[in-house]
């Protein structure tokens, strides 16, 4: 199932050139960019693993693209995303986050319904790797 999380996720996958342009935009805003990856794209999995430290003081997208290439080499079948963090007072939060790579074969999600106490029904969403 095609995962749609973060910005641009309803568009076709971005090319490297397009990724670099988005990163350029983020740097122009003064945001710090970083890379994260995971093998579990469950929507509640908010903690992806960090690929190194966030990159502060980059002047050019080439710095991030270099790391992205490294990350793809090490994790060819994981989800990879780029985040851009705005540290200005009042924001201090992620301003942009988008998937830049995904495994060739993406997992499915299984919705499980269980009866619990008092005739309540509990729904669980579970990642299923085939």
């Amino acid at each position: 199932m095609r995962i749609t999380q973060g910005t641009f996720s309803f568009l076709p996958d971005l090319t490297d050139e397009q990724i670099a342009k988005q990163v350029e935009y983020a740097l122009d805003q003064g945001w710090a960019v970083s890379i994260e990856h995971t093998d579990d794209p469950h929507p509640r999995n908010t903690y992806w693993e960090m690929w190194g430290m966030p990159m502060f003081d980059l002047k050019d997208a080439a710095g991030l693209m270099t790391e992205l290439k490294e990350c793809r080499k090490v994790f060819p079948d994981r989800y990879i995303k780029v985040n851009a963090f705005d540290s200005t007072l009042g924001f201090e939060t992620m301003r942009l986050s988008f998937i830049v790579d995904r495994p060739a074969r993406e997992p499915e999600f299984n919705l499980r319904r269980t009866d619990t106490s008092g005739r309540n029904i509990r729904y669980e969403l579970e990642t299923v790797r085939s």
Partner: protein
Amino acid sequence: MADTVDLKRMLDESHVSDVLDELDRELVGLKPVKTRIREIASLLVVEKAREALGVTSAPPSLHMCFTGNPGTGKTTVAMRMAEILHRLGHVRKGHLVAVTRDDLVGQYIGHTAPKTKEVLKKAMGGVLFIDEAYYLYRPENERDYGQEAIEILMQVMENQREDLVVIFAGYKSRMDRFFESNPGLSSRVAHHIDFPDYSDGELLQIADRMVDGLGLQLAEGARKALAEYLSIRRKQPNFANARSLRNALDRARLRQARRLIEAGEVDAASLTTIEEADIRASRVFDAAPAAKDKEKAAC
């Protein structure tokens, strides 16, 4: 595609001539350096012209080495170089990241690679300036992490030429030895530029500009005293050309300030004038006769 290109127009459009002229105007002396920089700029324009005519060639290697004694203008020129490379479209942003060994080499295993890479990433789009680069190589310690930094540098210098330009700097003799011991690095550095020491006359001209830049002026006697100061200081250890001069002027300003405070009431002219006494109070002048006295005593 056109079959002729107007080189002159390309040069004008890049506005690189402005930077080159500025370089000529604002930096005193450095004739051989200025000539080499003009050559490199021409090379880049011709390279661009080839590209415009559809002749494909690998991007030229622009990594450089600036050699010369301290205070001969290497860092200053490197900053201009970044600007020139930017105007000619060879680096995308044109900033300069200046580092030394400590910024690249770590303290323990696994510390060096991330450190070097972080610096490289920051420099991408611009110029990485490595001052006293020979400290990266310490043959006396075979476990030295400097070698690891050199290897990462080499890789990026080779594979990401369009992302950054590296300039190495330091004393000539030590730089030569460094390249002899690191042939891989040497073969990736295409341009070697040597920065000569400044003559006393050139240093005085630089002094005029520095003083002017501070909104001050040298009194007649002060300029003469400064000329004497420079000829004495030059023979002493740790003479660092324009940097020694800058330091001397900074100290003269301190003395001037003290003198003015002691005087109590001052006018605009005295506020902006460095007097002979401000220069002559330097210890450098004491040392000279003192040395003679010692010689006399020894005789």
